[in-house]
């Protein structure tokens, strides 16, 4: 965990001008407004693939809004206006012709509160593959469900009760269930919006372990309030304050040698 996977080139993470080679997701001059209120102010940010990128910052600084730019979930809020470009693998997903259904099949999302559907555990995981037609047969679907649950570390606990309602699980299990639901559609990017804030320390530890496992296959972007969590699980960190991206860099760099005084104040607990 403490050995960040750095791109081959020497990182030039400094301030807003940083770039990394071959980013998975890139935000270019993204501005988000709720009516007249600016939530994200001209943010440019590169997110590498196969790594965990943490977004930290005080409450209300726009972390969740930032996250929701990447799968265009902000569009579900009527008064929200997004400008700028978001590139995934170099393709601009902000273009009108990009289908949000397809986009969200590529970019999965896990929310703060576990939100399993009021259906069985099996149906929860199978829902995505079903609507996208990812499974060719019933056996195939069952295999997808099993693999997803295994990768989410939930299989052993629920394999005998796949037809119990998903809502009957404990909070930590529910959160792993929605992670399984997200990875069942085989996304490239997984967005996590404070996935552990509603969980106890034991469940949190399990989720963190899971995130660390998942990083080998997915580009993970996680919003967290917990500085220690960011330090434990992420390789890259971005610090947001009042809609502005203050500083980005490797987690080690941000936590040991912050360039900006605001970052320093925040991570040392004097601010926020």
């Amino acid at each position, binding site marked *: 965990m403490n050995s960040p996977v750095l791109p081959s080139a020497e990182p030039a993470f400094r301030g807003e001008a940083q770039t990394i080679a071959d980013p998975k997701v890139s935000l270019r001059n993204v501005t988000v407004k709720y009516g007249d209120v600016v939530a994200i102010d001209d943010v440019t940010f590169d997110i590498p693939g196969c790594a965990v990128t943490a977004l930290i910052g005080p409450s209300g600084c726009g972390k969740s809004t930032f996250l929701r730019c990447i*799968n265009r*979930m902000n569009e*579900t809020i*009527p008064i929200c206006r997004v400008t700028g470009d978001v590139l995934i693998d170099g393709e601009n997903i902000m273009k009108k012709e990009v289908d*949000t*259904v*397809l*986009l*969200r*099949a590529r970019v*999965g*999302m896990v*929310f703060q*509160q576990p*939100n*399993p*559907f*009021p259906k069985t555990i099996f149906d929860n995981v199978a*829902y*995505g593959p079903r*609507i*996208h037609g990812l499974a060719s047969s019933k056996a195939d679907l069952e295999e997808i469900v099993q693999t997803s649950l295994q990768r989410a570390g939930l299989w052993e606990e629920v394999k005998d009760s796949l037809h119990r309602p998903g809502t009957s699980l404990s909070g930590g299990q529910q959160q792993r269930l*929605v992670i399984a*639901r*997200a990875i069942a*559609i085989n996304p490239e990017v997984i967005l996590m919006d404070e996935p552990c804030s509603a969980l106890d320390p034991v469940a949190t530890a399990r989720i963190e372990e899971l995130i660390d496992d998942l990083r080998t296959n997915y580009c993970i972007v996680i919003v967290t309030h917990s500085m220690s969590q960011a330090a434990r699980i992420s390789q890259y960190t971005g610090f947001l304050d009042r809609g502005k991206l203050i500083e980005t860099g490797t987690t080690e760099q941000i936590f040991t040698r912050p360039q900006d005084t605001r970052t320093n104040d925040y991570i040392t607990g004097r601010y926020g």
Partner: protein
Amino acid sequence: MQVSDRHLSDRFAKRLKQRRRADARLRLYGMMAIGTALFLLVVLLGSIVFEARTAFTRHELQLSVSRDDRTDRSLTQDAHAKLLSMFGDPQDRRTRQDITQLVSALSLKIAGTTLVPGEVRTDQIVLSDKSDLYFKGLTTRVDRSTPVINSVSGNVLSGEFSDLYRKAIRWRQAEIDQLARSGLRSAEQRAEVLKRQLDEAPDDPDLQARLDGERTRAAQMRARIEGFRSELDSGSISLDASTASVLVRTPTGFQRVVSISENRMTTETLLENMSLPEKAQALFIHTPAVQRTLSDAQIAALEWLKHEGLIRNTFNTSFFARADSSEAELAGLLAATIGSILIILTTMLLAVPVGIAAAVYLEEFAPRNAFTRFIQVNINNLAAVPSIVFGLLGAAIFVNGVVIPIPFVEATFRLGGGLGRGWPIVGGIVLALMTLPTIIISSRAALSSVPDSIRQGALAVGATRLQTVHHHVMPMAAPGILTGSIIGLAQALGETAPLLLIGMVAFIGDLPSGVTDRSTALPVLIFQWSTRAERAWEPMTSAAIIILLALMLILNGLAVWLRMRYEKR
């Protein structure tokens, strides 16, 4: 636990006590409110059920009658002849009429014409509603006793009648009290007031006339009371049509008592030439003849039929199997029930899909702008529109049509109209319009109560808006939507005013053949029956209310069942 001094202060303790008392008070108010509501409900249902209890049975006369086409003798003629012969063929026209009116004339007519030609027979004759009410104890209170008759000479009976005599005295005394308490006293009070007014305006001839009138009335009442009192003192009471009746059954017939004392009765013959048991029987009938629907002779005849075992109390089949009728004993609510079901089916097919679709669009798809807010406000307003207005609208648009003059041409254009008055489909459309706001509002509430996290979760795995709504939001909102819809329909089922306005007010004697046939509905039928004058309609009205309530309960039960079924998932 360490309790700080602050928490032990008197003020804290006093305040705590107050808070506890406020809690207890609130709980008491709640319990009182629920208790009152329950009490009222029990009283309401209890009174309806009590009133309706007699409507589900009817009394029939066991008598074999037939229609003989060879002699051209109708079923009615045969029945009347046989009935009269049972009572020794009385010659008095009045008595004959009394006896033939005991059975339902309409029922005989229907039986005589609807059965196959040839020799038509029937063994059960439906009694008239008035006879039926007598057996149900709703005509008058009757006390039966067995007087000892020692000798009979002409119309004078001697024996031991002190029991009957005392009853007559009590009845008379009650009447005197009544006269003195209400009639006389109020006449005196009115006279008093008029007198005072006259003192202020001594020359008003109108006041003087009114005062004289009141004084005369009071004097008359005083004289009557005086007469009654002296009669009570005389040891003999005379009875007539304005007093309670006493009927005596002797071995040869029935007699009415015209005067009674401790050991002597003068009588008048009602029915004779009959064979009856040796032991005499007396009936003390509390309601005076002028105030009841059956004469003394009719009561005597019914008592005899009952004594002979010819009266059977059976299930009132007409009530459930027939349409409305002008005669209470033959009226039923089948036509109205069918009409109500047709109306509700139409309403359901129109209002439920349209209402749910509107709610889903407004809640899940419509942009939140001034226009949708305007629509929402107006839907809320529509829910508050009195139902009779919808009736007017329906009558104007669907039945009569709106006549629009075409400018510059001497012609008019009719918009809408063309549907018949009183058709169930018109009722259904009108009630659907009335129910739509209810369904839309409750469906929207159910949809908006679905947590947004479910929508977000579905959208985040790449579901379309429609899939999100269809797969996740609708199933979760279904119990609320169904409950709202069914409550809306139950409301429509009990609606009367709009149906009256689209012409369902007419008397309909046949079953409706479809949604485009003149029909009536249960609440309208209840309204109509409640306005009919005869006593027999009262239990019928209550019984119809029970049927309507039962239909509602079935609908609401369905809502509860659906809700539980969906919530289990």
